């Protein structure tokens, strides 16, 4: 009996050493991974809260956006798993289908000047949809991205009434095969998330990527608070505007050429 502690002590010490080494190794490995991830451009660790030091935004150069090009729209539908009006195997009528981003064709009534541009959630600094939401399901992250908490949305559609940009949608029927990173559900409101799941992993929104790869490169994404970013530079050097700028919602989506 008295020997036992002596016999166990080295064993316990070995066990403790092994545990320590294992944890140290895991920690070092994780730190190395996290470090390289940050070095690779992750805006923040995934478990870190968003910060108002960043203000994500997109600049659309309407002058570069060709009529008929729907690269951004197609990419959004695919990324988010939205069937939309072009598939047509759902029950909804075309005017009931969600469109988180759409191409709008414009023609000046006086001059006849025509242009086309994508319109999506404008991720306002002062979003009317967030103000009117009775339960707080509509909310704005500190970095300016406006989202819907699908678990708290009761489907009252007041946000859709309040949005000046016609950018919120209502899910009219049951949805199957959702993308794991993008919960959607019948009877709730939804809209462009600026691909928050991609941004948090250091990637650009799907529409912006598609616009550069398949379109005319009319969209620039970035942190408008970072003076070194491309978007901040373009905003500084060009005349830009926002849709319905008169409303004072201060959108994160800005346009050149309107």
């Amino acid at each position, binding site marked *: 009996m008295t020997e036992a502690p002596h016999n166990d002590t080295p064993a316990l010490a070995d066990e403790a050493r092994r545990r320590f080494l294992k944890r140290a190794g895991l920690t070092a490995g994780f730190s190395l991974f996290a470090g390289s991830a940050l070095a690779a451009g992750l805006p923040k660790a995934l478990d870190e809260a968003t910060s108002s030091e960043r203000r994500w935004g997109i600049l659309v150069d309407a002058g570069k956006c060709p009529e008929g090009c729907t690269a951004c729209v197609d990419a959004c539908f695919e990324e988010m798993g939205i069937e939309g009006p072009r598939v047509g195997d759902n029950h*909804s009528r075309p*005017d009931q289908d969600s469109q988180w981003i759409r191409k709008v064709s414009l023609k000046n009534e006086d001059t006849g000047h025509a242009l086309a541009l994508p319109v999506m959630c404008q991720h306002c600094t002062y979003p009317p949809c967030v103000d009117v939401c009775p339960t707080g399901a509509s909310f704005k992250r500190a970095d300016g991205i406006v989202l819907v908490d699908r678990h708290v949305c009761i489907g009252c559609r007041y946000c859709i009434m309040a949005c000046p940009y016609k950018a919120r949608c209502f899910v009219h029927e049951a949805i199957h095969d959702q993308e794991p990173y993008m919960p959607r559900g019948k009877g709730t409101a939804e809209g462009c998330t600026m691909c928050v799941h991609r941004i948090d992993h250091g990637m650009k929104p799907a529409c912006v990527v598609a616009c550069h790869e398949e379109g005319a490169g009319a969209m620039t994404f970035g942190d408008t608070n970072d003076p070194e970013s491309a978007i901040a530079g373009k905003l500084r050097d060009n005349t830009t505007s926002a849709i319905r700028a008169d409303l004072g919602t201060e959108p994160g989506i800005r346009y050149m050429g309107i």
Partner: protein
Amino acid sequence: MTNRIRYHTIDNSPGFWAIFVLFLILSAIGLGAAFYMEHHGHWVTGMSQNVVWGTPHVFAVFLIVAASGALNTASIGSVFGRKPYKPLAPLSALLAGALLIGGLAVLVLDLGRPDRLVIAMTHYNFRSIFAWNIFLYTGFLVVLLAYIWTMLDRNVKAYSTPVGFIGFLWRLVLTTGTGSIFGFLVGRAAYDAAIMAPMFIAMSFSFGTALYILCMLAIMVGNGRPVGDELVARMAKLLGVFVAGSLFFVAVHHLTNIYGPETRGLEAFLLLDGGIYTSLFWLGFVLLGSVVPMVLFFHPATNRSFSMVSLGAVLVVLGGLAEIYVIIIGGQAVPQVLFPGYEVSSSFFDGSVAYYAPSWPEVLLGISGFAMAFLVVALGVKVLRFMPHSLADPLVDAHFKGKADKARGGDAAQAQTA
């Protein structure tokens, strides 16, 4: 002894139970319609991404607006001390609560996720007028219960005036809240206006009083209880003033929009070439819902006739529904202007007038709101003493100088001797 008004419950009669069962069936049909829409999703309705608030909202908003207006009759007695209205007050408070319950039921059953009602009661965003309204509506029901208690229980009768005053203030705030649901919508030209709140208050006076007159006459006459001509004429003229008031606010709203070039297109749509919306406005609200009832209510040849006054009140209700339809559906059908000065088009129907046709489930749910409200009234008057045994003119008005035998709607002799 002889000139005292007594309050009685409604007697058992086949007619009462037939109406009760009818309301019960209509309520059940509405619940079934709501379940159908909730089960399948809103694709089975006429609603779309462009018209997200459909016919259920028309009925719900109408009922909620009318609810606060139904309390007018009680307020005139309690707050403004008009004695002839005092015996009318208990039903007024009951009807106000019943209409609110009916309206809220329709509103809640049309939610995308009605199963999450508990979330609406536990998560609040106090920047939202909807969140304020949850408190305004439930608070109004509490005030009404207290008011009814003070009116029906002699021991606390002394409190009926102060509680009635709170009720009066509360209903004004409540309808301000309902109007502001639309008035605060900065992104839609059809709504974004401070006048929405007082306009809704004016409408509430009109719709609520119309429904009150209909309910009062139906219950009193249907149960053989006398009602005085003078009383009915007095209420009819009051309703005429309310109808004129709501017409005035609607006119000012439209005139203001016509004056500004920015909103002329909107007004051209609603008032000239909006199809169903234009017809509902001019024929439904203005002509049949306002002008014709005002003639019936103010003309001495018709404002003592129960049937003519009832017809006028029915027209006010239908005209009111038409106007709320124009406001809610017509206001959404107009394209939102994102790019002033541009013609716009898109796959999302930018720049196009939205198509909307009510579906049967929506209409049935809306009608069930009325049925639920009347069911509450029927239950109320059956189990509690809301209704006076007589509203004959000499009884309700000490200064009445007319002929007592004009009391109709029941046994006139009973009215004089009771």
